[in-house]
């Protein structure tokens, strides 16, 4: 099991120092998660650390390819549009 960072990432560095498995690394055009190292923080933290600080909805996907922070979940903006 591993999370994935996609192109919505703004390279804000917030996640990288938090990763207990050192799975997150700086890359172009955006940060990446090493799928061999990532264990979604199981055993270390209740919540995946990168997904808990990431400010961008949809930038981090779970193993099923679904956003850890779906649209509207952090900003409330989608709710308003609906």
């Amino acid at each position: 099991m591993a999370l994935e960072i996609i192109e919505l990432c703004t390279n804000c560095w917030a996640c990288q120092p938090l990763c207990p498995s050192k799975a997150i690394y700086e890359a172009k055009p955006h940060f990446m998660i090493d799928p061999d190292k990532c264990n979604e923080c199981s055993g270390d933290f209740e919540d995946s650390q990168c997904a808990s600080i990431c400010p961008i909805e949809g930038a981090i996907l779970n193993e099923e390819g679904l956003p850890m922070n779906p649209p509207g979940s952090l900003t409330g903006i989608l709710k308003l549009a609906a």
Partner: protein
Amino acid sequence: MQLPVINNTTSEAPKGGCSAGSCGSKDEQMSHLPEHIRQKVFNHPCYSEEAHHYFARMHVAVAPACNIQCNYCNRKYDCANESRPGVVSELHHPVQAVKKVLAVAATIPQMTVLGIAGPGDPLANPERTFETFRMLSEQAPDIKLCVSTNGLSLPEQVEQLSQYNIDHVTITINCVDPDVGAQIYPWIFWKNKRIKGREAAEILIAQQQKGLEMLVAKGILVKVNSVMIPGVNDKHLEEVSKIVKAKGAFLHNVMPLISEAEHGTYYGLTGQRGPTHEELQALQDACEGDMNMMRHCRQCRADAVGLLGEDRGAEFTMDKIEKMDINYPEAMKMRAEVHAAINEELESKRLARESKVQVINIQGIRKATNTRPVLMAVATKGGGVINEHFGHAGEFLIYEASSEGVRFIGHRKTTPYCEGDISCGDGESVLDKTLKVLAGCEAVLCSKVGYEPWGPLEAAGIQPNGEHAMEPIEDAILKVYEEMRAAGKLEAKADEQQKVA
């Protein structure tokens, strides 16, 4: 370590206590500060209204990460044409940042202050922030260091802050009530979890207040920034002002919410408006009874360079800096000379001002105690004098003249009416914007005013005045006020036909 410039005699604050922006006003900005604080802020453009005409600041963008979300911030934004907090064009590693600071300090000797303000929260990036401060305190001891923060991780960082000669910290405190906070902060990252809603605001507020108390206890100067959000925290900020003053903050800076829809922030997209000039001024006046208010803030970008109100960041991109050959020890000597010259100028202006104010007071204004206050706009490029053409001004400084003297009210941004060949074709609509920006002012003092805007300005009840070019701002305003008094224009309320002779 001995700080060769800050501590030596040439760089001491001019003695006495009259600052340009508020000389003669009832709540004079710096004179009531204790001497040890005045010595720390007299050449800090963000903390001293007078200093901001002479000294420059810069921010380095080394701190991209943030541990909270504010409803007035969009973390996706990066635009070279935008001037507001949280926005940068180029993120720096600490080594690059230090290189940039040395290049700017050698090129712009008036630069006295280096701040780390983002684009995220500097204390949410402690390694990058403190590495930058450590290198700068070693390589450029003549530069003041300061940092701004949302306060969430402040208590755990106070000890380290005090180790790097950082004697100025700005905390953004928008509320002390979690129910208000829940409308401003959708979430925080706290103890390895994302916390939302009222609970998040409660933790953030507690951390901010604790951090403020710890900094004051350490003797570190604290300025509090608050964003005024009409209908959310506007009334509440008076209470915030009282509390932070009681806890020892030395300056409160109430800033207007910036919420254009195109910035894509929650407030921008939900139509939350910012305050009008009048609402902002009214709140600043209401808070002023309680503490020293700051009115000259320009809400800089997190990578701004230069005097407040200007941004020379484009001259110092990384590729340009790489080509510069900086000998900082040499530059430091030159900087010390420039600083000494500015201090001398400030001191002589202070003396001149004191004697002139006395003369004018004797001649009349003080006697005519019931003259009404008048707002005047000033176009300046810096130096504390009227030295900008009306058509080139990107902002106007607003002053209030009254029987009490002259006090600085704030600044209002506009689009320069005429930028040479670039936008003269659009002159009319730009002038309309400027007229709106100057609403409430009865005179605009510039080094020169063109023929074209003269009529519309007069028609709007704003007397154009180009007679005081290169004169100190307060002197010129007092003269115009005295002319208005002599012409009998200050006795009644302004009516639409009044004009300065």
